[in-house]
């Protein structure tokens, strides 16, 4: 057989029917994750057509986008949010779908819950009505964000008609400097290839800098593949992946584990396989990265300055930059580190796992937050929250002056009351700095957990080295 990429192997192994004459292939879906926002209309569709959920045993639901992160024992105050969550509960009951509701130990952001339960594994196809489903690609799975029509399609058939994707290798070689993390790599990649650069592609992240990342960092990378416009991001599984999966509630055991390992060991891009596009990035050169604009491609090194639209040759890029600077209330040439923030948001499916919280806590420990800055820390799941509390992270956050919240999507998209006020500026570990994303008129700078922590201490966009330098000077 001709050498194949990892993406091609995953595709071939899930092919139910190959499409002829320009028809799409029919691809089997191993795991369908469901949440309250993109599913009500899909379940309605099933009811109208008199269809059932074909494989409730490959489907799991959780409540995350709308859920409050305080007072979770009280009824949800906002009526529309409450109705949407009640609708999910009714639908799951009617169609026999497993649901982890608010208050349940396994409740949380859908992309944190799947891996934590051991439901996300190498060699799978995973879908969810959420673009950040790409997160699960970190395990060597083909993980796709889909729309509500496709949610209904998967509920009804456990398959999706899909056209094969192109493949792009993104090789990151070298060793990250202190203060630089997975988030900075992916922000740098998006700035390099653009928000449309990945359109139609599955991105495979490779190279020594990727291999050195733990699973939480790899999930951060794959999570933001969609921000480069890609259909998915994947990383070949290795011992780090196997160790993460082993022993989790739904991980295979005994002979099934051996069978899985035998298959998983084949899940890598073959020597000589050809990608449709290749991108290289030097990890040694990389600095902490932050965004200045209103799309995730508008990023710059934290040590840099706000760029000047006049220097941009592409007319669309220039127009978008002008508009972004107006919205963000920034001037060209301003040092990124001189930008003050009102809020620091530590959370979202990009950066809310235990490693992220540990990193954040290790930097703020022993400090007090900058005066006037709101610091909100939202764990990705109820279980992550408990694990963090077992390590005393909740105390560190509270002693710092931050708010230790319950799990959910929270201020990443402000569907619950956690929002920016108009004109408010945030350093956020989330994934999108779109206009109004975190609240009407809110301004977002995407940052890593390390930069979020240092910024919370100093009140202006900062790196951990700025904090330690101060300590030495004091």
């Amino acid at each position, binding site marked *: 057989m001709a050498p194949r990429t990892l993406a091609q192997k995953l595709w071939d192994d899930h092919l*139910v*029917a190959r499409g002829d004459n320009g028809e799409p292939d029919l691809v089997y879906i191993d795991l369908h994750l469901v949440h309250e*926002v993109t599913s009500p*209309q899909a379940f309605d569709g099933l009811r109208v057509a008199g269809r059932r959920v074909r494989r409730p045993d490959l489907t799991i639901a959780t409540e995350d986008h709308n859920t409050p992160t305080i007072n979770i024992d009280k009824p949800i105050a906002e009526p529309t949010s409450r*109705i949407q969550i009640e609708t999910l509960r009714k639908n799951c009951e009617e169609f026999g779908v497993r649901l982890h509701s608010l208050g349940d130990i396994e409740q949380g952001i859908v992309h944190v819950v799947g891996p934590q339960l051991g439901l996300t594994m190498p060699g799978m196809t995973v879908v969810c009505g959420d673009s950040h489903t790409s997160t699960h690609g970190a395990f060597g799975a083909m993980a796709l964000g889909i729309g509500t*029509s496709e949610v209904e399609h998967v509920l009804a058939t456990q398959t999706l008609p899909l056209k094969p994707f192109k493949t792009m290798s993104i090789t990151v070689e070298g060793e990250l400097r202190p203060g630089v993390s997975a988030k900075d790599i992916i922000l740098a990649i998006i700035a390099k290839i653009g928000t*449309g650069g990945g359109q139609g592609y599955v991105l495979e992240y490779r190279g020594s800098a990727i291999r050195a990342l733990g699973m939480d960092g790899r999930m951060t990378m794959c999570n933001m593949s969609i921000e480069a416009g890609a259909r998915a991001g994947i990383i070949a599984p290795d011992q780090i992946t196997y160790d993460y999966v082993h022993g989790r509630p739904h991980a295979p055991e005994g002979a099934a584990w051996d069978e899985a390992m035998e298959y998983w060991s084949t899940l890598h891009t073959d020597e000589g396989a050809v990608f449709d596009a290749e991108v290289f990035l030097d990890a040694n050169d990389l600095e902490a990265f932050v965004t200045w604009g209103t799309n995730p491609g508008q990023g710059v090194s934290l040590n840099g300055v706000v760029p000047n639209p006049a220097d941009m040759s592409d007319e669309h890029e220039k*127009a978008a930059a002008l508009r972004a600077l107006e919205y963000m209330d920034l001037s060209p040439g301003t040092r990124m580190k001189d930008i003050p923030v009102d809020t620091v948001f530590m959370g979202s499916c990009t950066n809310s796992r235990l490693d992220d919280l540990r990193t954040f806590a290790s930097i703020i420990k022993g400090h007090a937050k900058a005066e006037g800055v709101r610091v909100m820390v939202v764990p990705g799941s109820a279980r992550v929250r408990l694990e963090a509390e077992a390590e005393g992270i909740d105390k560190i956050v509270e002693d710092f002056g931050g708010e230790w919240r319950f799990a959910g999507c929270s201020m990443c998209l*402000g569907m619950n009351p956690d929002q920016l006020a108009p004109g408010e500026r945030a350093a956020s570990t989330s994934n999108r700095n779109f206009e109004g994303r975190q609240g009407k008129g809110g301004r977002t700078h995407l940052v890593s957990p390390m930069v979020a922590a240092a910024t919370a201490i100093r009140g202006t966009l900062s790196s951990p080295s700025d904090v330690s330098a101060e300590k030495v000077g004091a």
Partner: protein
Amino acid sequence: MDKITILQGPGIPLKRSNVDTDQIIPAEFLKRVTKTGYDDALFYAWRQDESFVLNQEPYSAGGVLVAGPDFGTGSSREHAVWALKDFGITAVISARFGDIFRSNAGKQGLVTAVVPEEVVLALWAAIEAEPGVAITVDMGAREIRCGEMVASFELDDYTRWRLMEGLDDIDLSLTHADAIEKFEHLRGNWRPTTLPARTA
């Protein structure tokens, strides 16, 4: 789904690139559990500005949207497609679309026509010269027509055929019911099931 053969309506110039789905419909409108009634939510933040194109005549009743590159990036929310349709947008013309948005549009009968950048610029110029000028999207001929101008557009054969025939995707996939069942028997034993539920 209705069969789509020829669409016609006033060309609406949206001279912005990277129009993400958060702009098309902000998250606050995603709390509804219905599939219709999103016309007021379309471009909600931008429409607060009276000079925004959809607040201008002759564009306020919908038509064919002509947008800058990378339209529909970001969130997978199909609500973006529903809102465009509810407002009366029948087709969007752009040089590049977000993949998930484009897939959603194809399922819901919103035509997404990909054309070279020059065609977008020419259409903007034509609209500027004659506001309200009609754009025709001819699915059969795979052509966009505006005044004297004729340009072909890209839409994959399968989606075009399905839209022209008004076919339901799920029914088409279920013609492979036997193949799905056969595939399910051959899946490895190690592959997890969500039921019975296990937790740590």
